[in-house]
């Protein structure tokens, strides 16, 4: 329920705070460790996206982890994409799928060839 409240708020600080509360609540219950981890990750993601927006002048907020990686790859920020992959333990296989799709989308045929 706190998660929903978080989504109902358009204010980034408030949403992060709500998610932090939600993470605590989920942690109290052994059955909900997955949700706790996911919500904690979401806080990390929102913070990261704020930084990315400042650094790249593109919108990132509200994208999912995979979408964030895709966008970074399309924009040519390969290193940052790799960092997101490492931070959130994104499996290798998915990362490569995202990379192929990004290369196609940005018509980077040289990149595809090298792939």
């Amino acid at each position, binding site marked *: 329920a706190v998660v929903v409240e978080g*989504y109902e708020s358009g204010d980034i600080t408030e949403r992060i705070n709500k998610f932090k509360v939600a993470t605590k609540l989920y942690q109290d219950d052994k059955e909900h460790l997955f949700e706790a981890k996911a919500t904690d990750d979401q806080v990390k993601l929102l913070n990261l996206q704020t930084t990315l927006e400042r650094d790249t002048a593109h919108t990132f907020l509200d994208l999912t982890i995979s979408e964030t990686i895709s966008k970074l790859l399309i924009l040519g920020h390969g290193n940052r994409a790799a960092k997101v992959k490492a931070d959130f333990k994104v499996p290798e296989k*998915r990362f490569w799928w995202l990379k192929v799709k990004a290369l196609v989308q940005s018509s980077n045929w040289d990149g595809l060839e090298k792939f």
Partner: protein
Amino acid sequence: MQAAGVFSTGAVKDHARQELIDLLDSVRGKKGLVIDPSLSGPLSLVAEFTLLKEHGVEKIYHLAPGKLDTDCKSLIYICRPKVGHVKCIAGHIQTHSQHGVKISYSIFFVPRRSLICERVLEEEGVFGDVIVGEYHLDLLPLEDDLLSLELDSAFRELYLEGDTTAIFCMAKALMKLQTMFGLIPRIVGKGQYARSLADLLLRMRHEVLASAEDEEASAKIFPGFSEIDAMVVIDRTVDLITPMSTQLTYEGLIDEVFGIRSTFVELDPSMIGGPSAVPSGGSSTAHTPAAATKAKKVPLNSSDRLFAQLRDLNFAVVGGLLSQVARRIHEDYEGRHQARTVTQIKDFIGKLGNLQAEHQSLKLHTGIAEEVTKYTRDKDFNSMLEVQQNFVAGIISKPHIDYIEELIDKQTPLVQTLRLLSLYSLVDGGLKTKQYENFRRDIIQTYGHEHILTLQNLARVGILRKQDTSRHVYPQIRKAFRLIVDDVNEHQPNDISYVYSGYAPISVRLVQAACQKGVGGGSTTWEKSVAGPAPVGWKGWEEPMRLLPGPTFEEVQRTGDTRVVAKVKPKQKVTLIVFLGGCTFTEVSALRFLSQQDEGHREFIIATTNMISGSSMLKSLMANFSRAPLNP
């Protein structure tokens, strides 16, 4: 009235229509009608616009928040008893009174009022300004053999939220049917909520009889005959596998591709070769994008004879049939050259109207079939279907699991991914711990964090979950009910499994077990094994029934009235199949197939809370909340 008592869904429709007329006439003079958008489909099945007009309706509005500008002196609201709707109506009334507009208001709740809604009206301070009534629009005839409550979110409400309003609605509607067509002597069923429905029905009957003034009055409540010989109640949770599979009948695929709502499908006009409104001459700019993309609402029902012929067939045979029909129509048109005498010409002209209607319908279905073919020829569709068919056949191997993973990696729409993953979980008794963790992580990372709620919902209703200690029974169910049929013949089906090209829906196998006693292919196996018609029930199926979740039950309703007793044995038995939590078009087709196959001994009528597909069911379970746009 229905003195003859021959069961027909038409009588149900007439009933609903008359009640609507009475309701409209209860407000004098010219009026505006404000309709809950979720009811506009159902209402259009009951009454056409001209009927509303004849009874003083000048304007029709869709219920929406905000201001309602109208010059009508009275407004009639028809809506579901939802708090949101009532707040919206209260808003209208408040703005009107602020602007000094005097209007008289009536609200009719469908199918009945609720205390909460009346409380909201009180709190908003408008309770005194409105007349509150009920419009008992419950079971709607979508077809001659198909009744639906059209409660879109029935599955979610019943199994996720534990809100049993839908059961109550069904019970009330079935009571109404029993007062029209007689008490149903046998009620059998499977599943927790099926049991609740039967209990509720038995209790309601006692209450009705007890409230009658004297014995004579109570004897008149139910007619002295039973038009329906038995009722089989099926709880959707007994068979979750069927909706997760892709429907392969013509109507089922139309539902999968476009979505059918209250018998209507919305199509791109260019697709069906309808009268293209774009003038060919003149400037090319006449073609406005808004007009071009505006979807056309097309009704799909058996008054379209071609559709009636096609709807229940496996899609594989639809193309061939369409071209046959095209050839015949062409020949009929050519018939005009043979016309030599004036009488012959007259004859031809007489047929022309029919021919043109047929031609129109052929155009429509060729258009739809072409579009569906694009979908079924798609490589991804076929890979997905192959994995599905392996799963239901009990063949689960690593490449299949990897395929689901790939769906996520390729960012395939979430509903499709979930459908296959859920099917996997259902046939394999849940996911292994490690797998469950990984799939959940992948879904969250790819489709968004908010889906932790979607995943929780799916786990709660048991569609997608972690393996636990409970037995893994699907293989036994598959064998006991002969779900997989290898020699399926789509052209000349001899078994219901044709609707999924080789998989027979569990739900319909249950109906066969109860009514035909056998789930064999042809009708021969069971006809031989059963001497004389056995009563509808689970006899002989006690063991396999235990494999499925929820209680199995049989109830007998005795009328306790001597004058009853079946007068003349009707030639054809009518059996009512009730689905709680929705049924799919393929299940309807499979039941129709049984009606025909059983040499016309037994006809099946279906009553469901709503029509579903795996996708609409999963969508109703997804996290849904208003999400604010995020500002940095």
